[in-house]
C-alpha cells in the first residue's frame, strides 16, 4: 500500500469557521469545534465566527446534566487560552479571532456580557469582507 506524505511545512492559511447552529439540537456545533482544534495542531490562522443561532454556543451557563449530553462549552475556554497563547508568544505564528456577528447577537437580545469568552463584535458588512478574504471556509 502506498504511503502518502503530506508536506505541510510552512503552509499557512486563514480558515474561517462558520458556526450558525444552536448547540445540542444538532451535531453541527460540536463538529465545527473539532475542526477548529485540528487547525490549532497545524498552527493555522483561524477566524472562529458565530452568527445566526450559532451565537447561542457562546452563551454562558450551559448546564446539560438533565439532557444527558456532554456540555462542550468548556472547550471555548480552551480556544480562548489557545488564542491568548498565540497572541502573546512570538514563537507561535498563528492569529486566532473569536468573532460574533452584531446583527445576530442583537436580534436575539444578547450582549457581549452574555458570552463565556471575550469576543470581537463585527457588523454583517465587516464580516462579509472577512469571510471573503479567507483561504478556506468550514461551515456548520
Amino acid at each position, binding site marked *: 500500500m502506498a504511503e502518502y506524505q503530506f508536506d505541510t511545512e510552512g503552509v499557512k492559511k486563514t480558515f474561517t469557521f*462558520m458556526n450558525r447552529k444552536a448547540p445540542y439540537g444538532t451535531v453541527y456545533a460540536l463538529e465545527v469545534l473539532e475542526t477548529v482544534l485540528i487547525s490549532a495542531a497545524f498552527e493555522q490562522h483561524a477566524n472562529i465566527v458565530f452568527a*445566526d443561532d450559532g451565537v447561542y454556543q457562546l452563551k454562558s451557563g450551559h448546564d446539560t446534566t438533565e439532557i444527558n449530553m456532554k456540555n462542550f462549552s468548556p472547550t471555548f475556554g480552551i480556544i480562548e487560552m489557545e488564542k491568548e497563547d498565540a497572541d502573546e508568544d512570538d514563537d507561535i505564528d498563528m492569529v486566532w479571532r473569536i468573532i460574533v456577528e452584531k446583527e445576530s447577537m442583537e436580534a436575539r437580545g444578547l450582549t457581549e456580557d452574555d458570552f463565556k469568552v471575550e469576543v470581537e463584535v463585527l457588523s454583517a458588512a465587516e464580516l*462579509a469582507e472577512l469571510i*471573503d478574504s479567507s483561504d478556506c471556509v468550514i461551515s456548520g
Partner: protein
Amino acid sequence: MLHTVNKSPFERNTLDSCLRLSAKGSAILLIEDGVIAAMKGTVQSAKIEGALADHSVFVLGPDLKARGLAEDNVIDGVKVVDYAGFVDLAVEHGAHNAWL
C-alpha cells in the same frame, strides 16, 4: 469566493444569511432544496432578484429537474448550470463557502 445554498428559503434562513454575509461580486450557486429560491413568482423571489445586483447567481439544473421545476420559470438573470458547470465555478472562484 463561491457560496452554495442548499436549503429552501421557505424552510430555513440559510439564503438570508448567505445574502447578508457574502461580499459584493462573489458568486452564489443554488443547489439541492436551495433551487427553490431561484423560481419566479414566489413570495421569496425578491431575494434572488435583489441579489443579482451584487452577485452572479447560478442554479443547478439536475436539482431543478429532479423537483419538476422548469428552467423557464427560473428568475431572469439566474444561470442554469450542470455538474460540469458546478466544477468550473468551483475552480474559477477558489474558496468555497457551503451555507448549510
